[in-house]
């Protein structure tokens, strides 16, 4: 049970924290990578997220929030914090794993999707990634992003509309003509 593992982790048991990490780190890493576009940044964020659970100021309350929802929220906050620092020039640019070499081996479509998502406003990007790639319900996304479910729905619709426009060239008719 995650809450039990967390309680053990808080009392200083590395093993329990590692089990918590084993259960959730892949999803969190994937989410962080989709937000940042960098596996190095994603790993750093996910590590911070688990370490935060051991700190005295940790605000996690198992009676109110499932552990995975809380961890998604921490990843999201870490990502936003890094974006702000970067905007203020106080953090180095991330070393993006999408080098020309790796891009060459990825499909043209995957590259186009990655580019279109990276160009979405932050508020739409996080909602689209949580809804489509992590398959989270609107209520849970609302909790992670501190929004009302109606606002989440509206942002998701806008994000999908933008993606439709950006990926129009890969639509069914175009695919047939390729």
């Amino acid at each position: 049970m995650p809450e039990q593992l967390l309680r053990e982790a808080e009392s200083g048991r590395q093993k329990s924290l590692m089990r918590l990490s084993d259960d959730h780190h892949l999803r969190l890493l994937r989410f962080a990578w989709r937000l940042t576009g960098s596996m190095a940044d994603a790993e750093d964020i996910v590590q911070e997220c688990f370490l935060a659970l051991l700190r005295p100021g940790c605000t996690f309350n198992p009676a109110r929030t499932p552990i995975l929802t809380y961890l998604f929220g921490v990843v999201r906050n870490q990502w936003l914090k890094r974006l702000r620092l970067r905007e203020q020039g106080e953090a180095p640019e991330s070393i993006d794993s999408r080098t020309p070499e790796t891009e060459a081996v990825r499909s043209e479509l995957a590259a186009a999707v990655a580019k279109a998502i990276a160009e979405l406003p932050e508020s739409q990007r996080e909602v689209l990634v949580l809804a489509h790639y992590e398959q989270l319900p609107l209520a849970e996304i609302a909790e992670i992003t501190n929004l009302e479910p109606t606002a989440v729905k509206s942002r998701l619709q806008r994000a999908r509309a933008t993606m439709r426009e950006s990926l129009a060239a890969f639509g069914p008719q175009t695919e047939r003509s390729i």
Partner: protein
Amino acid sequence: MNDDELDRLLDAWEPPPPPVGVRKRLRARLPQAEQRRFTHWRRWALLIAVASATLAISLGQSTDTQWPIQFTRLYDWLIQNIDIWRAGEIRDRVRLSDPKVYVDEQLVSPPNYGPAAKISVSVPGDGVYSIISVPGITGWVENGRIHGSVIEFKAGNKQVRIECNKPIVQSDLPVFVRHQP
């Protein structure tokens, strides 16, 4: 482009495999946890050493055959000190957990933390109620429970609830209350 077609396009964006050694690198960043475990072990060792020394001195000074009674008293003293130490740990966890105090579901001022591991709550119109999780102290009455991240007790005819933002105990404990009008 309909929803299904868009979903298929989005699915083309696969994440790369996770980097090797993620687990090892996370483990390497956990020195604090090891230190905490050591601290916990050291406290117990110190407690046992003090208790053994006290027992040895008591038995050494005993000139009659009353040593079983002295041993029982010493045992009671030891158990009560362990309880007080544990109550102090709980009080510290509460203090670090941003506690919110509700009296009959109404939010009131945060608790105060006294010596001897007690926590005090001001109940509007009814003075101060102090609580502690140590049994057997004269003047303190069992009147509530600590469970998970919540402390609940009766203050006169009012229900007091202290909600913390993380767990403060692993298993349920009784709460002993004293009223100071």
